[in-house]
């Protein structure tokens, strides 16, 4: 008994010691699946504390910018100072930092019974939507009030309020915003709930002047007890489901949806080595599989971590400066470039990354959130375990070889379950059949040792 327990403990302690600190040994960055894995995806970062909220809305709008327009219900009329242009690089950094990751471990020579580890990971990226088209021509009443009108960066921004939705819809249509059929009911509901509308489109002249080729994220800051994200307008005319990544920066702890199930993705599973080259495909199919498992009604937790560190790090934690850019206003600014050479640590910032695939049928209501006091860490992390390939001979090595084939089979099954891929194909790609079956003694042969 003891003989079994000791190596187990050694390995556990090894793992623990390794994950206890973000050492370079534990995580080093190899590559990432930097492709647009998910179609029709948008990214939103929400920094929130005490009802004070900063929302960063990023989009990776691919079409002609003339066609771009965005209509967002907001709880209050916003001043010009409450609207800001964000840095896309920071949002990208946030996405990389929190991305699902792939980790590699290498089996050590079993004759020495130690595991050495190396980590690698991949990261993922996403993109963003646009809702309507814009071609403004005249101010019109129709019960619609233009509460404010600003030029912020490359965007023309209007804050609208309205008496009734039909008027608002007509106004938007007349001003060149393509409002999808059926949006009227949703607009009506928002108006009754006293929401205003934040409407943005690209000012082509400014865009050319600024020399920009892409659209930068828009940020709004406001104070409201409502902790929600309006998604209903986006579902009105969508053909098929849309992807949304939401990054929460909070002081207390993890954020979850209160009107939908927030589900942790399966993590820390060992999968076949060949996934390394197709991690993007793997993750996308895994996600789809999980969405199905939750009957398309789940919101998925991809990352929950204190901003101070990471292990393994898919990207370095964000600096205090970057976080401020994303709206984290509650950090002490005194002595910001502290701690000499090490990177300035973010304080009291907890990051939650949620990923949701939504459509009108399964997500009838806007997403509503709460911040919990849960500060436990979570990451969507998947493991590649390289076998030991040495040729030493010892009883332990034989035993090791014997369990390898079984291990591969288990990895194949895990992969099939996680992604829905064909198990036969997986076995073929892994070439399990070629793994030598070291002829071990049968249990009864070992029993009487004759």
């Amino acid at each position: 008994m003891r003989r079994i327990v000791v190596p187990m403990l050694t390995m556990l302690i090894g793992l623990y010691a390794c994950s206890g600190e973000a050492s370079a040994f534990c995580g080093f960055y190899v590559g990432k699946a930097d492709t647009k894995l998910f179609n029709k995806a948008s990214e939103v970062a929400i920094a929130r504390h005490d009802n004070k909220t900063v929302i960063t809305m990023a989009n990776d709008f691919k079409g002609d910018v003339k066609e771009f327009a965005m209509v967002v219900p907001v709880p209050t009329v916003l001043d010009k100072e409450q609207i800001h242009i964000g840095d896309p690089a920071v949002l990208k950094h946030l996405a990389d930092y929190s991305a699902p990751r792939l980790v590699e471990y290498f089996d050590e020579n079993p004759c020495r019974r130690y595991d050495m580890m190396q980590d690698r990971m991949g990261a993922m990226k996403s993109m963003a939507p646009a809702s309507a088209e814009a071609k403004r021509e005249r101010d019109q009443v129709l019960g619609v009030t233009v509460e404010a009108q600003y030029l912020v960066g490359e965007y023309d921004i209007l804050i609208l309020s309205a008496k009734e939705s039909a008027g608002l819809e007509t106004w938007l249509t007349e001003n060149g915003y393509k409002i999808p059929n059926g949006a009227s009911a949703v607009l009506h509901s928002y108006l009754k709930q006293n929401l205003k509308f934040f409407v943005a489109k690209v000012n082509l002249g400014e865009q050319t002047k600024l020399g920009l080729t892409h659209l930068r994220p828009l940020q709004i800051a406001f104070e409201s007890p409502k902790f929600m994200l309006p998604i209903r307008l986006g579902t009105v005319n969508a053909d098929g489901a849309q992807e949304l990544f939401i990054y929460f920066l909070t002081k207390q702890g993890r954020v979850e949806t209160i009107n939908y199930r927030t589900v942790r993705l399966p993590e820390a599973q060992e999968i076949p080595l060949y996934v390394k080259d197709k991690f993007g495909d793997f993750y996308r199919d895994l996600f789809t599989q999980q969405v199905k498992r939750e009957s398309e009604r789940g919101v998925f937790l991809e990352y929950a971590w204190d901003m101070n560190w990471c292990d393994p790090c898919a990207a370095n934690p964000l600096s205090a400066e970057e976080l401020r850019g994303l709206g984290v206003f509650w950090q002490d600014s005194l002595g910001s470039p502290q701690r000499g050479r090490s990177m300035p640590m973010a304080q009291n910032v907890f990051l939650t990354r949620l990923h949701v695939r939504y459509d009108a049928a399964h997500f009838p209501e806007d997403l509503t959130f709460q911040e919990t006091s849960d500060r436990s860490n979570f990451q969507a992390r998947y493991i590649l375990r390289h076998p030991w390939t040495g040729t030493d001979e010892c009883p332990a090595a034989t035993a090791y070889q014997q369990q390898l084939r079984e291990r591969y089979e288990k990895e194949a099954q895990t992969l099939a379950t996680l992604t829905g891929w064909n198990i036969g194909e997986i076995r073929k790609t892994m070439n399990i059949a070629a793994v030598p079956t070291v002829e071990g003694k049968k249990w009864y042969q070992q029993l009487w040792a004759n």
Partner: protein
Amino acid sequence: MNFNRLTSQLSTLDPRLYQIASLSTLLLYGVIWLHFDISVIQIAVTLATALLTQYVGKRFYNLPAFDPKSPLISALSLSLLLRTNHLEVAALAAAVAIGSKFVIRWKDKHVFNPTNLALVVMIGGGLGWISPGQWGQVAWFGFLVACLGSLVVTRAARADVTLAFLTFYIGLLFARAVRLGDPLTIPFHQIESGALLIFSFFMISDPKTTPDSRTGRIIYALLVTLAALYVQFGFFRPNGPLWGLIACAPFVPLIDRLLPAVRYDWSRPTTGQPSVPVPLVLSLHPQRRFS
């Protein structure tokens, strides 16, 4: 025949046994299938602390007969709803819940529903949280059936407050949807919360903390509904019913004073009307005597 005999036998059992059975099943399903964020140890700590507090309370106040049923129900409800990363918090919640029954009393009746009070204290203090969205349709629907079924089988004498609350609450949610022009999938989605069911069938229905008279209970259900909806749509806070119930609990002595009736006893379930047989809400059997 056999069925009738079975139901009549079942209906003589303490209704709390059904409650314990359905709560345990739900908890098991939640932990195994829905991956509730609660460890087995935390459940054990909650149960043990609740039972211990009940035992100590009974001894301290020299009360007869230790009965584990009520503390078990409180502990199971807490395990289903309260989430925390610290075992101490789970223990504290159970102790607050059961302890409050002995300490916070008014005219020989405890004022707050034990689970409700513990939850509000823990959440208010930032020690834990409730995840109201974690149920999913299957669990919710199954649990709804179990809850309604237990009303039928046990002919719970105080089902009126549950039904009144659900009627007011769901009715007003639908009214809101109609006013906003929302599709009815929205209110349907809003009531699809296991927390709401636990609240309606196990907290607000607690005969020890609701008014003694039926009229009183219906008025009480309305008050709680209004408070709950105000928390939800006025303050934009989650867990409206919990806050609503805690806010309205102090009105119970007042309602009892205005509309007096017979005090409840678990061994003799009554609706509160003296010497009148129980009007059997959702009953299978037309007659039954309580004595």
